[in-house]
């Protein structure tokens, strides 16, 4: 009896899955503008308040349901959304004019106040928003007490002015980031509740109350009132949350998921053969390297400079990206990323990033002449919950083979544990360091990481020459001059190597044959609005 019951259960399961697949085929006419695209995501870390959404899971949703002053196209260039113009004569005082006719999905018009109030909310100290520091260059910002952004002035419903504390030539470039989205006035009544069922002005909107099923998915449908540059050609998005990329990959294989923007390591070898031209492997705005702290003996001053260069030249980046990553990483030639405007693979001094064992041994010996390294073990710290072990071991092997020193990877059980030693200057060697850009600008790759006293400059790098060039770049009157200064600043970094660049992560995605026109944006997220289904 038990066996027949078992058989019954499996038979009914078969019948169920059979039904589902035939139903799918039946209602799939050619290029359906009402078709829902399913894609992978992860549970947002916080309620969907733009100024508190700085991670990728929530960011992907926030950029779909909100439209800021500008948005980014596939190349990472800005296109006006709500803004009609963003202008300045001196890169310090900016006048923002809004296009007429924009509304939130609750029919409230998008006005200058929608932006100014939202930015003030995001910047206010006691609101403890994770993106508060994005407003720190606006006059009135304060890191320690509640303070109004007095630099923001509403002129009329369609116009406001922004006064920056220090000039920034490419300031409009950052305005497509989630932190700068407008909010409807209904949001301020109960921000936490708003975050559960956000009301936006973007190409998509939530599919009714409770469209966000926690830990499961969020259902978005097209916003009929949206008339910007990201007009969707499909009916909506189902963003399914996965804890494990391998499960998402299997779902694309099994026909349950249309678009995947992160291929799991286990499929690196096979995904391109399996998906052919439905597989994507292109550079992304993610920089990976490792840093040697300046507080360690042997790693400061002239000796440290020689050792950093020696270590850098002893790593065979080409081989590691090929063997460990199957070509899903691109060896680094600077401190930014190939998808950013102003990237260069021929900066002066970039040869320090090429594999050159003879020169490496020579430089290491020169450093030993200043102060002998002795038998100290060289190590690189990493968090073992992030899949870093394979490449750390490969880098260590490369160093050991070239320099013949004793070296090892130093795993920390969690990211939190690794971060603690990093923030407390308690490292015994190098540390893994990665950076994904918030907005497509050279400045965003440089200032937060290497400027004296910057938030992510844990290893205490400080260079007057670099800080000066960064300032000159920021205050340059046009973007070309700014780029030139940022490149010069990077040449200082190539001298000092506060971080030893390794490679840029690629975005690796696949899509099922149910969808077409899958193009990945500069931020490794597909441009969902362009995808067609059926």
């Amino acid at each position, binding site marked *: 009896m038990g*066996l027949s019951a078992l058989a019954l259960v499996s038979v009914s*399961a078969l019948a169920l*899955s059979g039904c589902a697949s035939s139903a799918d085929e039946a209602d799939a006419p050619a290029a359906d503008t009402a078709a829902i695209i399913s894609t992978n995501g992860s549970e947002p*870390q916080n309620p969907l308040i733009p100024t508190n959404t700085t991670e990728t899971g929530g960011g992907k949703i926030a950029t779909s349901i909100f439209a800021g002053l500008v948005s980014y196209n596939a190349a990472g260039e800005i296109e006006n959304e709500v803004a009609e113009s963003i202008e300045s004569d001196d890169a310090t005082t900016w006048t923002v004019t809004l296009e007429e006719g924009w509304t939130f999905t609750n029919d409230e018009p998008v006005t200058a106040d929608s932006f100014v109030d939202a930015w003030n909310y995001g910047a206010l100290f006691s609101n403890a928003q994770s993106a508060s520091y994005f407003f720190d260059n606006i006059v009135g910002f304060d890191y320690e007490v509640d303070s109004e952004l007095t630099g923001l002035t509403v002129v009329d419903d369609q116009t406001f002015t922004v006064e920056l504390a220090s000039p920034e030539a490419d300031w409009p470039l950052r305005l497509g980031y989630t932190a700068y989205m407008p909010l409807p006035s209904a949001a301020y009544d109960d921000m936490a509740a708003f975050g559960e069922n956000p009301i936006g002005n973007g190409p998509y909107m939530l599919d009714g109350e409770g469209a966000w099923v926690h830990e499961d*998915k969020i259902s978005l449908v097209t916003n009929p009132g949206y008339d910007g540059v990201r007009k969707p050609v499909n009916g909506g998005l189902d963003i399914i949350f996965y*804890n494990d990329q391998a499960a998402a990959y299997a*779902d694309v294989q099994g026909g349950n998921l249309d678009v995947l923007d992160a291929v799991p390591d286990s499929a690196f070898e096979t995904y391109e053969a399996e998906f052919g031209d439905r597989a994507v492997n292109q550079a992304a705005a993610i920089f990976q390297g490792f840093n040697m702290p300046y507080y360690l003996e042997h790693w400061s001053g002239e000796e440290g400079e020689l050792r950093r260069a020696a270590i850098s030249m002893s790593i065979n980046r080409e081989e590691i990206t090929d063997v460990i990553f199957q070509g899903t990483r691109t060896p680094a030639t600077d401190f930014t990323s190939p998808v950013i405007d102003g990237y260069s693979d021929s900066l002066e001094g970039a040869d320090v990033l090429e594999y050159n064992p003879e020169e490496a041994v020579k430089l290491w010996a020169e450093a030993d002449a200043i102060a002998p390294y002795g038998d100290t073990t060289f190590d690189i710290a990493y968090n073992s919950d992030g899949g870093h072990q394979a490449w750390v071991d490969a880098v260590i092997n490369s160093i050991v083979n070239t320099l013949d020193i004793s070296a090892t990877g130093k795993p920390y059980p969690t990211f939190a544990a690794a971060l603690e030693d990093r923030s407390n200057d308690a490292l015994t060697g190098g540390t893994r360091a990665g950076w994904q850009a918030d907005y497509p600008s050279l400045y965003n790759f440089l200032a*937060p990481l290497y400027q004296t006293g910057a938030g992510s400059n844990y290893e205490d790098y400080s260079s007057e020459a670099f800080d000066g060039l960064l300032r000159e770049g920021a205050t340059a009157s046009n973007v070309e001059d700014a780029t030139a200064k940022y490149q010069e600043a990077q040449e200082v970094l190539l001298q000092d190597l506060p971080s030893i660049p390794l490679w840029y992560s690629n975005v690796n995605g696949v899509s099922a044959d149910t969808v077409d026109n899958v193009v990945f944006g500069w931020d490794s997220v597909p441009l969902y609005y362009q995808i067609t289904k059926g």
Partner: protein
Amino acid sequence: MLWYTGRRILQMIPVFFGATFLIYFMVFSLPGDPIAALYGDRPPAPGVIEQVRAQYNLDKPFIVQYFLYIGNFFQGDLGTTYSGRPVSDVMAGAFPVTFRLAMLALFFESVAGIVVGLIAGLRKGKLFDASALVVSLLLISVPTFVLGFVFRLTFGVQLGWFRTTVSGEAPWGELVLPALVLASVSFAYIVRLTRASVADNLNADFVRTATAKGLSRPRVVTVHVLRNSLVPVITFLGVDLGSLMVGAIVTEGIFNINGVGGTVFKAITLGESTTVVSFIAVMVVIFVVANLFVDLLYAALDPRIRYAK
């Protein structure tokens, strides 16, 4: 019997406090600042981290944190996760799915395991018995994640018989495949337990007597042999229910099921004590109740077992 049950239930109180205290302490002792780690490689303004730490009482000493938690617990407030969701909501999402998965697995493993074990025990040394032993050995030695991947690839991707992962509402049909994976190892143990116990009992005096007094073979096997052979199997099932409820992390991950195992694992890596401790507290209760149930079932199966005052 009542007295016994009552005493066992009272025992849950110290177990509950001991377990929650220890777990809370262990999560507290995890290295690193869980709030700073939430923001990954892009730290927010220092003031933001401080305020969020204070919001979750993480700026207070351990013992204060624990008693604040326990105090709220008895007022029905299990606290919130670091994303601001009430832990009770998270539980309401995770436990029902895992419970249904565990029930399905328990059903598969017990029915199939006992049937196969019984046949193998009755035909000790024959071909069926030998193959059952080999298959069970195989299932015990293959790690769950291997079996999970193979099943998902074969039955999900290649044959398309099952959905590759379980969708949000987790309908029973989609849970079959993960339940089979989850049941496999325990199935093997149950086959072996039942087989050994049936083979033993076949030679027991009471079976010879039953046969001698002219009872039919089916009656001897079902009433006398099987019933007596089930005592060790039931013990195993009781313990297994507990581990199925809590230990399905691997299977849940492979099939993208939003269940207890995965939730607790994620909470541990985040250092989210409220979630971890609340889940563990419920698990402790499940374990204790399952074991109590098993102990009471003994008496029903074997009248010689009685619980004295």
